[in-house]
C-alpha cells in the first residue's frame, strides 16, 4: 500500500513538473529536462566540522525562516507552497525518509532543499544520485539535493544563506561532510557552489532518456578545489 502510494505521488510530481516546465518554457523546456546526452555534472563536497562556517549573509538578514518540513505540516496545510509540485514532492520525499527544509516567509514556502544521511542511525537510506554521481557518502555524511527557490524570489541572494542554514544544522547534528552537485550548464548553481567554496570532485557526464539514466566519468577532466586550484 505504501509502495502504491509512493508510486502515485511520484506520478503526480512528474505531472506537475511537466506542467510547470511547459508553462515556463514550452515543450522544448519539458524535453530538455527529460532527454539529454552527456550532460556534464560536477559533484561537490564541503567539510563541516573542520571548517568555520562560510562567511556571508544569513537568513535572519532577510526575515525568512528556516524550518524542517514534517508530514504534519503538510497534512495540516501549515504553509502554502509557491510552486504546487514542490508540495506534492515534499510529501513523497518525507515518506522516502529524506529530510526537507523550507524557506518560509509568513505562511508561504518560497524555497526548499532536501537532504539525506545515507549511513546515519538506523536503516541506510538510498538516493539514486549517489551511485550516478559516484558520491562516496560515509558515516554521518549528508547529501543535499534539489534546492529550489520559487521564480518570484530568485535574484534575492537567498541561495547561499539557505545553504548556510542547512550546513549549520547538519554541523550541530554531527555531520562531517555535505555532498551535492550542480549541472555545468546551470550557471547560477555553478556560481553559488564556487562562491561558497565547495570542493569540486571529478566530473561526470550524464545521459537521460525519460526514466533511463546513465553516467560516466569524464576522462582527463580537471576540477577545481575550493581555492580555485586544479586538482587531478
Amino acid at each position, binding site marked *: 500500500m505504501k509502495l502504491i502510494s509512493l508510486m502515485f505521488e511520484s506520478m503526480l510530481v512528474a505531472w506537475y513538473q511537466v506542467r510547470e516546465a511547459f508553462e515556463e518554457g514550452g515543450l522544448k523546456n519539458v524535453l530538455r529536462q527529460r532527454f539529454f546526452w552527456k550532460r556534464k555534472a560536477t559533484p561537490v563536497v564541503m567539510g563541516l566540522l573542520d571548517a568555520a562556517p562560510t562567511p556571508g549573509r544569513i537568513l535572519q538578514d532577510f526575515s525568512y525562516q528556516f524550518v524542517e518540513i514534517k508530514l504534519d505540516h503538510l497534512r495540516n496545510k501549515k504553509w502554502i507552497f509557491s510552486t504546487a509540485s514542490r508540495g506534492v514532492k515534499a510529501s513523497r520525499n518525507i515518506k522516502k525518509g529524506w529530510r526537507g527544509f523550507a524557506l518560509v516567509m509568513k505562511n508561504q514556502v518560497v524555497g526548499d532543499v532536501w537532504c539525506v544521511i545515507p549511513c546515519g542511525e538506523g536503516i541506510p537510506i538510498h538516493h539514486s544520485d549517489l551511485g550516478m554521481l559516484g558520491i562516496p557518502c560515509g558515516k554521518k555524511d549528508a547529501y543535499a539535493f534539489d534546492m529550489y527557490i520559487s521564480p518570484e524570489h530568485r535574484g534575492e541572494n537567498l541561495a547561499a544563506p539557505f545553504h548556510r542554514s542547512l550546513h549549520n544544522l547538519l554541523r550541530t547534528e554531527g555531520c562531517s561532510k555535505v555532498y551535492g552537485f550542480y549541472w555545468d550548464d546551470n550557471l547560477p548553481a555553478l*556560481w553559488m557552489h564556487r562562491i561558497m567554496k565547495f570542493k569540486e570532485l571529478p566530473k561526470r557526464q550524464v545521459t537521460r532518456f525519460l526514466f533511463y539514466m546513465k553516467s560516466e566519468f569524464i576522462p582527463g577532466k580537471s576540477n*577545481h578545489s575550493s581555492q580555485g586550484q586544479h586538482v587531478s
Partner: protein
Amino acid sequence: MTTSDVIRNFITNEILHNPSVIPLGDDESLIESGIIDSLGIMTLLAFVEREFSVEIPGDDLLPENFASISAITALIERQMVR
C-alpha cells in the same frame, strides 16, 4: 572608453539598475557586496562575451576572476590574448 569603464557602466546600469550610484571603484568587492550574485553572473557573463568577443571557459568562472572590476578586466584581457 577603457575596458574597466565599459564594465563599470554595464554593472551600474544593467545589474544595479541605478545610474546615479557613486561610481564603483576598480577594486571594490562585487561579490561580498552581493552585486554579482548567481543571477548577476549570468547577465554579466553574457555581456562580457558579446561585448568583447571572448569566450570565458567554465574553468575561469571563479569568484576571484569576478571579484572586482579590475579582476574582470584582467580576465577579459587574458582571453583576448588567447
